[in-house]
């Protein structure tokens, strides 16, 4: 059980959040209503997706104050506390890509991996910027017309329609195409949160003394470039691309990885 702690915690968090959103429509609850684009927490606190907000602003439309305030709250939360936690603790697509990734390992597909020269991990930042440019040119939030994240979330709340095909496409891409293809290479929202979450105080810390270099953490990590210090030095993982999923902590048999609070005051 020990090595499933954070995985289970994450699934419980993700499903609870989705269930609250679902209940807001189906049963009229007002704990968490709307969708990621813009939500209302406890019937009063506005929340909004920072990347969606940026796209709409890029079109030149003057957004309502609720959305701007909501985006501010979300940015502040992940910047100060959560890091890129949205991706692994909230986003429903994470469950799809985690399943694809788990199957990849079970089916030994990773060993056959082709070298996708043009698909690098920084592609997502290009897509993020491109999304803003396309939004500005066409006067419409460009990522929102195809975002599998909100398509899946709205699917759960309001019904999928043909939207399930998009989710299936992401699953197949991650399973048979590129390893961590969507979340780790393409998703512009993940890119946005990587930038926002870089300064957060919740971080995974590596203890070089305890590490036995089994490399289990690097196998499960969806962004394993952030674990460059493993078996080298005892420092915190400060890369913004770390999603704080805690899977490395789960699989580590030597307690060499733990969640810790970054202390900016201590030099």
């Amino acid at each position: 059980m020990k090595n499933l702690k954070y995985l289970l915690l994450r699934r419980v968090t993700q499903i609870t959040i989705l269930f609250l959103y679902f209940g807001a429509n189906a049963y009229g609850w007002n704990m968490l209503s709307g969708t990621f684009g813009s939500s209302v927490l406890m019937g009063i606190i506005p929340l909004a997706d920072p990347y969606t907000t940026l796209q709409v602003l890029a079109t030149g439309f003057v957004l309502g104050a609720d959305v701007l305030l909501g985006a501010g709250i979300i940015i502040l939360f992940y910047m100060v506390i959560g890091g890129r936690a949205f991706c692994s603790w909230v986003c429903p697509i994470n469950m799809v890509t985690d399943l694809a990734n788990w199957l990849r390992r079970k089916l030994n597909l990773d060993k056959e991996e082709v070298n996708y020269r043009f698909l690098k991990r920084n592609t997502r930042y290009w897509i993020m910027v491109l999304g803003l440019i396309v939004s500005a040119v066409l006067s419409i939030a460009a990522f929102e017309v195809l975002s599998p994240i909100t398509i899946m979330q709205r699917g759960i709340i309001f019904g999928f329609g043909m939207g399930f095909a998009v989710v299936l496409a992401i699953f197949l891409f991650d399973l048979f195409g590129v390893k961590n293809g969507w979340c780790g290479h393409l998703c512009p929202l993940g890119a946005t949160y990587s930038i926002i979450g870089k300064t957060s105080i919740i971080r995974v810390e590596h203890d070089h003394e305890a590490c036995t270099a089994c490399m289990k953490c690097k196998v499960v990590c969806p962004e394993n470039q952030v674990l460059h210090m493993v078996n080298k030095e005892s420092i915190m993982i400060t890369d913004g691309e770390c999603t704080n999923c805690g899977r490395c902590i789960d699989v580590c048999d030597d307690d060499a990885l733990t969640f810790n609070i970054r202390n900016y005051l201590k030099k």
Partner: protein
Amino acid sequence: MANSNNRRKFMTTTLQSVGLTALGGMLWSGYTHEVKASPLVLRPPGAIKEEDFLTACIKCGLCAEACQNRDTNIDKETGEAREGTLKMAKGGDHTLIGTPYFIPTEVPCYMCEEIPCVPVCPSGALDIASVSNEKEELDINMSRMGLAIVHKESCIAFWGIQCDACYRACPLLDVAITLEYQKNERTGKHAFLLPVVQDSACTGCGLCEMACVTEKPAIFVLPNEISKGRAGSHYVKGWDEKDQERVKDAKKIKTVNERSEKEASDYLNSGDLY
């Protein structure tokens, strides 16, 4: 030598990245441009102009949730919410994904007095001012979701059969749809009771379309952009004082061309009429 190789590699990778970004941008733009073209869609009350609506709507679904869970939509027997008017466009709906819309023949807009869907909009896609009167009270009768159109050939009232289903169903009874009486020349002793939609009052709620008895409704709501014509600003109603105001500062322009060399009377008296 190594340095020049590095530079060449750097140049190639940069060029590759820029090229692929341009490719992606074109595909993305093309797709987006296609999917935003869905003009036959009825939007919630207070929706701003379709083109701007597509820009402004943040696809949060708060309007649809408010519509479904409004007090008047809760089934008194089961205590559960019935299907609301507003749907959130799904893949395959041929409407921009994630935007709210409604189909009158499934669930029309019941024109709630408190308009639950509009004030919850966080982005400004639903404009509260457009459905508020001078006293800043919400007034659903001010909404213009679309305009009902009557297809005379399939409307049985135009055949002489007595039917006033749409007239009775209209929430603005005898205001948005009025009945015009005409003599039925075919029988010589009956009257036609013809439904006429009043553009100045119709909100486009779709209750008439829902009520219509014909197999495919003979009265139906279309978005204003589609259902309304436009005469153009160069037409001025000379008999309308207010309209006449538009041209009160107009300057008299005399057009001079080949024909103006002769007077009209010269032309008429020349004998060369053709």
